[in-house]
């Protein structure tokens, strides 16, 4: 898919400058940058949640999102939280729940689960949509270091297994290393993408 953003502004001031990025199924990219630089804005644009900008985001790839918060349906049980949004079948849903270690939690409501479990459920949901490219918005933030490491490894396994690509937005430099993702830096005002000190 091709992402071509001329700029993105909020209330007259540009947050993102000219950005161009190509990504294919199987490629892994990490967008690094400090808080408030516009990483989440960029991810929302790529996910199609924000179309109010000059430029285009195009391609046939199927996308799926892991949000910063688990963003589950509190009134639906774990299994339904996978099948309802993604429309996937029960077999795939139970298989994914097993992979993220939630096979005993199928009938639980989200608030009966710990934050770590909710995040794994959200990860399983994202893979249930059979994405070509997975979009992740700081999904490991606010987890304790051990849980975060386990989540990162789990994400890596699921990416290997499904062959999906990845655009990960984070401010933690160790995450792209562990996930073998190509690190790009988002910085400046308005922010642009940089790789090895070069603007791209």
């Amino acid at each position: 898919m091709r992402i071509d953003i001329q700029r993105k502004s909020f209330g007259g001031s540009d947050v993102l400058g000219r950005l161009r990025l190509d990504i294919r199924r199987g490629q892994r990219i990490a967008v690094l940058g400090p808080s408030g630089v516009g990483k989440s804005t960029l991810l929302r644009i790529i996910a199609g949640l924000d179309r109010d900008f000059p430029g285009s985001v195009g391609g046939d790839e199927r996308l799926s999102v892991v949000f910063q918060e688990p963003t589950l349906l509190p009134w639906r049980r774990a299994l339904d939280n996978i099948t309802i949004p993604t429309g996937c079948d029960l077999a795939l849903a139970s298989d994914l729940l097993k992979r993220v270690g939630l096979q005993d939690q199928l009938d639980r409501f989200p608030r009966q689960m710990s934050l770590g479990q909710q995040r794994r459920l959200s990860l399983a949901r994202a893979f249930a949509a059979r994405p070509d490219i997975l979009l992740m918005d700081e999904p490991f933030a606010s987890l304790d270091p051990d849980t975060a490491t386990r989540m990162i490894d789990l994400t890596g396994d699921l990416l290997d297994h499904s062959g999906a690509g990845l655009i990960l937005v984070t401010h933690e430099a160790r995450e792209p290393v562990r996930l073998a993702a190509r690190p790009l830096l988002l910085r400046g005002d308005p922010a642009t993408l940089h790789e090895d000190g070069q603007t791209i």
Partner: protein
Amino acid sequence: MPGILSLVAMLVLWVVVARISDDPRTMPGPEAVAMRLWQITVTGELWFHAGMTLFRVLASFALAMAVGVALGLWMGRSRTADQWLNPGLVIALNVPALVIIVLAYIWIGLNEVAAILAVALNKIPVVTVMLREGTRALRPDLDDMATAFRMSRAARLRHVVMPQLAPHVAAAARAGISLIWKIVLVVEFLGRSNGVGFKIHLLFSSFDVAGVLAWALAFVAVMLAIDIVVLRPWEARLSRWRRDED
């Protein structure tokens, strides 16, 4: 327990007032009213007229909830719709129920359609306002999630939007049903030839207070039963997911 004691206290007060007034025609005691209640129950009169009233209550309730929920959802979601419809809504909220009823009977005729429509029109603005507030409080993060996963409109409405609106729908329903049956009685009083309101009209003409009280109490009991048997269990079922443990 205090609830039961309070009911007993009210009953005692009634007996005392009836004794003091010593005028069974204008202030009949509970035993006279109970006798009438028994009479209209065994003759079957109660079931026919209460049934007609209940039918009107349910029909106008269903109409008011359906239209009110749809309008509230629309106005809560779309700024344009809200800006265009809000003045009409404010006016509708402030038109007296009696005016709507009289106009409906004049314009549509003294028939069932006019009666049900008049009651529904009285209730729709209230439901709309409650649902508009509920819709404005919908969680934007779940909206994003539904968009990101390309959920269909129907699935979105059923699994994302309606569960969030359920407490508002339930509140509107419970507030609605008690308002509606009171308006239905007025509608029947003014222009129907059956129903509890019609009976009260007849009894009012003959100044039969015991009869009026008997019919009123009977219908209060019916509406309370609906609240306890239908509405409360439904509300409890909808909020199951809020509990920590099953």
